[in-house]
């Protein structure tokens, strides 16, 4: 099991859905993707690098040879994959606190989903439907998603200041440099090894 790499945790979950509910969930995702503002809470959480939901209809599991046994499933399945920063408990707590309505809208179509609040039952459900990662890679294991966003702001600010300060007198540069530092100071700090997670 290797769910954790550096500061990022790879979560996998699978939940069964009655087939007649699948179109309703597709509608929810369509609205999430097309109605401005509906996904804001997910963005504002700011500790998820990448996440995805994948609906696998019961007859859509790939079958690539006659020798491969055919699946005979009663349910469609919802797969969920997330790449998040922090510990499992922090993640589920934050999801339950901030995104409970959104999570209910997505998972209420899955069998026996208890709703995102109270969190105890929600955690029990996630623990039941989660399965472990065998190999996990990240190109920037020492950086959280907030680190990544801050680094891009710093990088852009350095280039901007380099352009603006060309040809300045030393005294003008001194004032401009202080303003530059004031602008970037909240985004400085070093990345490194994350705390031990659960």
């Amino acid at each position, binding site marked *: 099991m290797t769910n954790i790499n550096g500061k990022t945790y790879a979560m996998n979950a699978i939940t069964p859905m009655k087939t007649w509910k699948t179109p309703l969930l597709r509608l929810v995702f369509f609205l999430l993707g097309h109605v401005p503002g509906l996904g804001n809470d997910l963005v504002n959480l700011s500790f998820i690098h990448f996440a995805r939901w994948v609906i696998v209809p019961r007859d859509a599991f790939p079958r690539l040879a006659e020798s491969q046994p055919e699946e005979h499933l009663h*349910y469609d399945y919802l797969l969920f994959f997330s790449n998040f920063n922090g510990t499992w408990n922090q993640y589920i707590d934050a999801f339950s606190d901030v995104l409970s309505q959104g999570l209910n809208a997505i998972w209420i179509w899955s069998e026996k989903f208890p709703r995102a609040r109270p969190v105890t039952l929600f955690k029990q459900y996630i623990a039941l439907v989660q399965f472990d990662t065998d190999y996990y890679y990240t190109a920037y294991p020492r950086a959280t998603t907030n680190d990544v*966003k801050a*680094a891009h702001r710093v990088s852009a600010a350095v280039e901007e200041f380099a352009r603006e300060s060309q040809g300045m007198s030393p005294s003008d540069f001194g004032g401009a440099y202080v303003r530059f530092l004031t602008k970037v100071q909240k985004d400085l700090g070093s990345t490194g090894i994350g705390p031990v997670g659960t």
Partner: protein
Amino acid sequence: MPNQSGSIYGLTILSPIIIDPKDLVCHATAIRDFLATLPHDHNSPFAKVSSTHMARLVVMDDVVFVGTPAREEHLESRYLVFETNFDGDLDTYLLSMARDAAHEVDSVWRHCVGYPGLRDPGAFVEYMKKCQINTTFFFADVNNKTVQQTLRALKVQASLADFIAANQGLPAAEIQAAFREFVESVRSAPDPLPAETPTDDGPYKMARKQHA
């Protein structure tokens, strides 16, 4: 397209794993055994496929029974789940996997039904597309930066903090000259390696050493 968010592509693959009762070690276990040997740093196969932000390989043994009154059911096959988030288009990425991580790709997918091998990269691309499940909803927090842009930005961020500390309190003219050198060193530094473990002698420490 749900598989894409900005410039990031979210690929989801389910490859059925071979079932052969005659094998001493089942293919799912063989995959897990091999995956356990793979490095996670810049020697990772996904570091060689350098447009990969994050990727995972998972053997999915079965679906989950959530309890009554839900119906209990089971998969007939195990599936290798490949979830990856990368820059650019699908064909280029899959061809890069076949070319740049051939040994690892072959060692994993040869345990899967219908895998054609890598002699014909086009056949591999077609095989992977047959195993692809379209993403229904994809979220990427930063969806307009490549891996290389992010690695470079993280280096700039770390080295700027060093630069500021090293030059604190110096006359403005000296800081100005040092900043010019710093910017030049940042721009001319070699591309950072994905998943690289930083060392004290990284390319951007130059400014600190020169001006300390």
